[in-house]
Structures are given as C-alpha cells and as structure tokens.
C-alpha cells in the first residue's frame, strides 16, 4: 500500500493541541467517505513504519522518545501485532535510559534515578564518574516500565529501590509531583505517573499516597470533573489522571455499585459531567463546549470503564465518529479528515479496544496499556 511522503510544503499551520504532539498539516482535503470498519492491517503498517523510522516532523518530540516508543510498541500489542517487534532489542534499548546512582548516598541527594526520555538529556559521566546531568523523568519512567512489561521483561531484575527512594524527592508537601528533580510544572499528570510506577513496581514506598489523594481531591471542580491543578477547569485528561490514580492507589472501586456517600469523590456529580462529554457528533470532548477529539475517547472512556459506567455511552455513535478520524494512511488524527499522528493513533487504538473491537487486545484502563502487559502475561 502507498504510504504518503510528507513534503516540507505539507507542513502547514500548526494544529491546536493540548498535548505537544508534532503537527500534521491541517490543510488537507477530507477523504470522500470514511471506511466503515477499523482497518487493522493499515494501522499495523503505520506502527511498523514508526518503529523503524519516524518522519522528521517528530524531531521536536525527540525529548520524549520513550513516549513515542511506548505509543508504537504498546500500539502494536493492542493490535495483536507484537511479533513485529524484537523484544530483546527493545528491552535493552529501554534499559539503557535508566539513570543509575553511583552510591546509596546519591539516591537520597535529591536526584531522581528513573529513566531518561531520550539521549538528548542523557550524558555519560565525566572522568570522575560524576553524572552532572541526571534528567530522569517521571513520565519517561512510566513509559519505560510500561514498554518493559509489554515485551515481557521481568521488572524484578531492575534497580527498583533507587527509583522508589529517589521518587520521593519529586513529591511536594501538597501531594503533587514534579517530573524532574531540577524543577518543572507540577500537576495531576505526574501524580498519575507516580501512582502507575508504584503500581507496576508493586511497591508504594515511592510516594505518600495519602497526600497524593488529598491533592487529587482538591482538583475536583464544582462541576464534578477534575482539572489538572486545583482551581483549573475540569478536563478529560485531568479527570483520567485523577480517577485512574485513585483506582491504582486503592481508594476507589467500581463506585457505581456502591452508595454515593461511601466514595471519597462526588461520583454522581462526576458521572453526570462525564456522560455529557459525548457530543452530538458521537465523539468525546475534553471540556464542555469544545470540539470532539479522538484522544478523549480514551481519557473519558477509560474513566467510565473504571467507574463501571462505560455502558452509558452511545457506542455506535462513538465508533462512527472515530472512523471519521481514521486515516487512509493508517493511524488516527485528532479531528476528522486530518493527517494522523502517533499520539492520537495510540488513543484511537485504546478507544477501539474499549469498544471491544474484534482483533484487538483488551485494555487495562487504569494503566493505559493491554491487560496482558499489565498482568505480565507474555
């Protein structure tokens, strides 16, 4: 099949995007009518292409290389095409990004001994063995561990202790997390990464769960959704980070079957807000009165799955919307008829997994990867 050659002239106006994905040009004509089915083979080819070489548009995402790898490899696993991947090669490559302390003392000096996101932030130690540029990052660490689990690598063999002890350096007194020890923004995304890391390592010594819970609760907005920080507008991504974290940490269960008063979050209010996120075009929006975007089919859909409310959506309408975002080149775009990118493609696949599309592996909603990988089944 023909893969589109992206020419520099195609690189048009940057797309609006809340996540910093590379910008496929938005000025492209829509395909005459979308395919009425999920085109698995084309998506596998798309991911294989990415696995082997990503187009230059992704160079601005170099710092998040491990995230790009996660989308690609976990994507292949979702599509039951992990055989396309050399698992040992991937595991070794991922492991090479881990920051290692030289001594036990170093682990408590403030640095974070997780995984780097890319070689751009990773430097060999100098002649004295001093690693002056440790940029272990929470999100990269989450991606690294998720990839390792996906390819069946046992996490029992990695240096968990350094990760967990040094991770505490990243948590603030209000319970929030920054992703890097040198400082960066703090918001729910990194609370989620921390919870997912502890969950995958099966060890909660990496964070103060109670404080994290308090921070999350402070992020619930007056309308029931969660903003990324206290006071901010309720948002599909923020709500996912909040609810998935609480589930991973063990603070909520399938809350619809319980009495409203016994949950630590206002579930009825959240539920009413979140079912309203399905728009008239069948897609999901991230915030009230905004356009539907492919990725919220995951962020919002996964919250519903976790709470036991996925049955409340109109699956036919959602599927129809998602298919208008399916690209003829493989992958998914943010909005109908645009060019695909790896981020929206991945969340398109997770959305179809939630819809129980034939031929896709089931999804672990709270970890954002396949159930098989989450459970450690190769």
């Amino acid at each position: 099949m023909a893969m589109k050659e992206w020419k520099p002239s195609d690189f048009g106006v940057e797309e609006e995007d809340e996540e910093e994905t590379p910008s496929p040009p938005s000025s492209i004509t829509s395909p005459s009518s979308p395919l009425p089915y999920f085109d698995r083979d084309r998506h596998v080819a798309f991911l294989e292409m990415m696995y082997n070489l990503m187009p230059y548009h992704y160079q601005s995402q170099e710092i998040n290389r491990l995230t790009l790898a996660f989308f690609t490899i976990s994507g292949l696993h979702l599509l039951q095409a992990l055989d396309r991947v050399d698992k040992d090669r991937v595991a070794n490559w991922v492991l090479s990004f881990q920051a290692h302390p030289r001594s036990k003392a170093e682990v408590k000096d403030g640095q974070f001994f997780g995984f780097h996101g890319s070689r751009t932030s990773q430097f060999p130690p100098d002649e004295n063995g001093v690693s002056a540029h440790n940029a272990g990052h929470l999100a990269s660490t989450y991606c690294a561990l998720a990839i390792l689990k996906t390819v069946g690598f046992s996490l029992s063999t990695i240096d968990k202790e350094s990760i967990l002890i040094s991770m505490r350096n990243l948590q603030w007194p209000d319970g929030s997390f920054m992703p890097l020890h040198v400082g960066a923004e703090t918001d729910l995304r990194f609370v989620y990464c921390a919870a997912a890391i502890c969950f995958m390592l099966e060890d909660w010594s990496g964070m103060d769960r109670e404080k994290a819970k308090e921070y999350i609760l402070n992020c619930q907005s007056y309308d029931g959704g969660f903003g990324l920080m206290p006071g901010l507008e309720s948002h599909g991504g923020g709500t996912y980070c909040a609810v998935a974290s609480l589930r991973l940490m063990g603070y909520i269960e399938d809350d619809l079957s319980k009495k409203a008063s016994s949950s630590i979050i206002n579930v009825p209010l959240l539920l009413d807000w979140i079912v309203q996120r399905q728009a008239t075009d069948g897609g999901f929006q991230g915030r009230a009165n905004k356009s539907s975007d492919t990725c919220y089919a995951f962020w919002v859909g996964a919250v519903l799955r976790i709470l036991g409310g996925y049955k409340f959506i109109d699956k036919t309408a959602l599927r129809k919307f998602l298919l208008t975002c399916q690209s003829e080149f493989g992958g998914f775009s943010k909005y109908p008829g645009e060019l695909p990118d790896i981020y929206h493609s991945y969340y398109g696949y997770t959305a179809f997994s939630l819809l129980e599309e034939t031929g896709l592996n089931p999804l672990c909603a709270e970890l954002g990867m396949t159930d098989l990988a989450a459970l450690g089944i190769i």
Partner: protein
Amino acid sequence: MESKEDDREPLSSKAEWSDVIPLPQDDGPNPVVPIAYKEEFRETMDYFRAIYQADERSPRALRLTRRAILLNPGNYTVWHFRRLVLQALNVDLDEELDFLQQIANSNSKNYQLWHHRRWVVERLGTDAKAKELQLTKEILSLDAKNYHAWSHRQWVLQALGGWEDELDYCQQILEEDIYNNSAWNQRYFVVTRSPFLGGLKAVRVSEVRYTVDAILAKPDNESPWRYLRGLYRDDTEALVNDSQVSLVCLKVINTKSNYVFALSMLLDLLSYGFQPSQEFRDALDALWTSDSHPLDSDLAKAICYILEHVDSLRASYWIWRKSKLPLAG
C-alpha cells in the same frame, strides 16, 4: 544581545563556534523509533550537547539555547540549561520576558515555556503582575480557551494579585462567547477565592441572578447550569430552597425547547428533596403528550423517561438513573 538573523545559518560555518567540537547523539546500536532529523536540528543539538557537557555558561551558550528552543520547545533540558546560563550571566530578566513574548504565540501550548515564564516572574516579583495579565489576555484573545493561559492567569492572581479586575475580565470574555466554559470556571475561581469579594456566600445572590440570565439566553449551554450547581456546592439544601433555581427550570421547560439541562437539574432537585408545585407537573404534561405512553405519575420517573427519549445519546444513563430512584412510598 541575541539576534534573529543568524538563527538559521549552520553553526559549523561560524567562526565563533570553530573551537567547539559538536557532540553527536549516541543512539546506540539498535535504536527504536529513530527519527529522521533534519540537518539543522541535528547540528544544533550536537553543538548544544557539547556546550551542555562542558557546562559552558556564556553569552554564546545563551544564544544557542534560544536556537535549540525554537527547534525543540519541548526539550526541558535545554530550558533548564538556559536558566543556569541566565543566572550565571545575571541577565536582565525583563529581556527574558520579551524573548518569551516573541515566541509565545507559536508556543502557547508548551508547558516548558509557561514554566520558564513563572520562573522568571518569581524572580521579578510583583512588578511583573501587569505584564503577565496582559500577556495572558493577548493569548486568550487568539484562543479564548487556552488551558495554559488560564492556568498562568490563576497562578499570577494567587502569587501577585490583580483580583480586583478579574470578574470584569470574565464578564468581558463571556460577553464575547457565553459558551466559553473556561471563563465560567475562572469566574468560579474568582468568586470563591478573591480576597475582595467576601467569599461565595456573599456574592451568591448576584451570581445566581447573572447565571439565570445566561441560562435563559441560551438554555442549551451546559456551562451556566454547572455553574449554578457549583454556587451551591456541598449545600444541596440551599440549592433546593433557592426558588430561582427551580424557577429557571420551569421557565425553560415551558418554552418547550432546549430543555434537556433544565430537566436534568429538576431531576437532581427532586432527588435532594425538592417539593414541586403543580406547575411543574403541568409543564411536563404540556411537554409530552402521548396516549400510548402516558407519563409516569412520579415526576422524577417521568423526567427520566423524557430524557431517555430526547437525550438519546445518553439513553442508557437516564434509564439507569430511573432505576436508581427511590421506590414510591
């Protein structure tokens, strides 16, 4: 002084950089998801790596971080090093704000840029307040829902002040677009946290009035309905007792158009113990006349039934809501 003109010339062609050996990226033997870097990107990052490894905190290093940022604004390592260089050179941070201003429009959704801006502003103190509020205003004039801009604005208010004019600003944004949920959220932020308004309860009456007007103008607008509920957060008794709330539901239902949110609110009121007058029953009956499927005598059940049909995307949800209603006594 950083100049823009030489930002695109290859570094290897410049005398200034002739003493530096660029440090190539060591991707290792079997890299996964390798990226087809353009030459300009590769070269810039090779020089950055060299300078970073050598920890050279010089004016040319500062210019290099600018170049790298423009190619790679998400690279937090580059931003971090830029901060180290700014400190080492004791650069006038107002100039740094100007630099950020120049690149703000095309990077308005970049987390690193906003974090860097806060770092600069923290060092400048309260003097920066006006500039920050102005910058976010400009960004929001291009994209009135930019999450980062609103977040920065909230941070500025809390760190530096400026609360006095914020309610007016929200009003202005809402006049331009009453559907702007970000502006409604900001309004809530102000009425609940401003040290000048006396707290939510003090402004509740006027806020309810404002919200009711917004609802009546556009009853299909989700935002003011949520806001109205929010004004009575954790106080459902007061919500039930405020006749303005039930009244706006009734008014909208009586128009027989765009009444989904009105029905939903009424359903919630009933579940909190609202005792409806006959008018509510009459309004519902006027809305839905069907001999084959007469409405349930229980008002809440009747509402669920109607919603199941007129809000069909959420039919399963409304059926579930009905199933959860207390059995009639």
